[in-house]
């Protein structure tokens, strides 16, 4: 794949120069810092907001634990972060086709596959760094506000979600290779998310396919057991297949 290193370097530089560097990490860091605090003080917040009217409800609330903080983080990843990936990366390849820069892949001694694969790899690494940083922040703040923060539940949850996030990044890479419209690709991406969430209800499928990762991060964050080996392995394998398909689609597409 001639040109992979050059394209990867370009892609990394562009990340630093665009709003992506602020939106995704900024958003995740905000939730990572505020999530544990919100989890710890939920009863107090509800009491302050509802006054005497919600006194009964406040009394019935269980005492928050570090697991509530972890669950908050897993929920933010599974919903807000995933939607952000779908929307931001809807134009990952088509954006360059529109601006005319993608044509470079054809008129230079580089492979078209390198152009697509470099994008998928660099943005997957960017996502991984962002999730790891956010999880570290969640871990630290949780330890501060709860005085206790065992790592296993949090990290198994976050890393299993990361595999799901990488899978969606690969889905968006393929969709943006096939479709010219960022909004159109994002719409199909959201549709794929809805389908996976529904399919996760069928246990055998959830156990042995990427579908399982739609709910596993939350289960793990709550300190429960969830078999994630097959979902993670199949997610990463499917991500590779999707990126390879995106590269093939880009090779055959007229620019």
């Amino acid at each position, binding site marked *: 794949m001639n040109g992979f290193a050059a394209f990867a370097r370009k892609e990394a530089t562009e990340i630093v120069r665009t709003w992506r560097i602020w939106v995704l990490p900024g958003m995740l860091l905000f939730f990572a810092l505020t999530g544990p605090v919100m989890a710890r003080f939920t009863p107090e917040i509800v009491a302050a907001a509802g006054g005497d009217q919600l006194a009964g409800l406040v009394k019935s609330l269980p005492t928050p634990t570090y697991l509530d903080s972890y669950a908050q983080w897993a929920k933010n990843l599974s919903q807000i972060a995933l939607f952000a990936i779908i929307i931001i990366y809807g134009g990952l390849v088509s954006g360059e086709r529109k601006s005319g820069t993608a044509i470079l892949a*054809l008129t*230079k001694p580089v492979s078209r596959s390198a152009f697509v694969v470099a994008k998928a790899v660099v943005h997957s690494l960017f996502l991984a760094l962002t999730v790891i940083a956010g999880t570290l922040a969640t871990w630290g703040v949780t330890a501060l506000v709860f005085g206790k923060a065992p790592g296993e539940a949090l990290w198994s949850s976050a890393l299993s979600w990361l595999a799901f996030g990488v899978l969606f990044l690969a889905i968006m890479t393929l969709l943006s290779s096939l479709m010219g419209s960022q909004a159109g690709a994002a719409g199909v991406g959201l549709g794929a998310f809805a389908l996976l969430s529904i399919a996760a209800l069928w246990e055998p499928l959830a156990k042995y396919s990427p579908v399982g990762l739609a709910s596993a991060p939350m289960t793990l964050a709550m300190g429960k057991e969830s078999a994630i080996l097959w979902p993670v392995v199949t997610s990463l394998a499917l991500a590779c297949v999707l990126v390879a398909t995106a590269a093939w689609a880009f090779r055959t597409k007229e620019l």
Partner: protein
Amino acid sequence: MDDSLAGLDGPAIEVAGLSMSFGPLVALDSVDLVIPRGAVFGLLGPNGAGKTTTVRILNGVLDPSSVGRLNVLGHDVRSEAEAVRPQVGVQTDTNLYERLSARENLALFGRLYGMREAAIGSRVDQLLDMFGLTDRAAELVERYSKGMKQKLLIARALVARPRLVYLDEPTAGLDPEASHELMTYITRVSREANTTFFITSHRLEEMEGVCTAVAILAGGRIRAAGPPERVARAAVPRVRVRVTPVPGSGMSAADLSALPGVKTVTALPGGFAADLIDEGAVSPFLRAAAALPFDLLGVAEEPPTLQEAYLALVGTQRDVGERQGV
């Protein structure tokens, strides 16, 4: 095109029977081109003539509807594009990476061509200096003016010292000084490094000055091709001599009309233009004009310009198109 244009080392570009249609629209119709290595070739034509389509096909970006021969630097573009691309530089649309600096844009292309980092650094510095971009080399391209972007696009096409360079309207947006520098550079590099330049442009005066060969494309067909002066003479069949008398000498159009071989004489500011019957009439006319009892500042043949040829050929094409309701 005239085969005499082909160089001894074989042509840089050799196209025969190139046709391209987009649905019912015929963009190119049996185009033949032979461009020698080291030539500065200008493809001239009105908007929609098929110039950009030709460049895209020669780059392997677009597959032609039909073609007999499509060779670039000795390789068939359709089957050996990988062999052609490392040797070719392209400046087309404004497809710069706007969130990278000028230096980063140029360096990226050096890397895409497989240049070594040390070589990239010195080449980038050289090009930034040549195009007057050194002071703003670290600035993001999105903040550049149109002219600066145009300079950067051209510099980018030249990064890897390609053997063949495609330039699409290269002086559009450039100030006269930068245009002049670019034309001087093109002439020098084509001579010193035997680099072939394939330029599409509307700026006929610039093309006439820099091109060793031109082709005029209109309605998807080559209307004329060859060295600019030959194209001009073929398209504009007139022989004109410009006579410039000393101001106040009293020379009139009638004095020149009486000379041998003269068809018509037109009075111009500061002198006269005498149209002669043919090439053979030039020498007798010059001798006779010099013998007239008037002091002259100059008597010189005024060959037809590329612009006149272009207007004659493209105007004819448009007239035909209009008559046919095209």
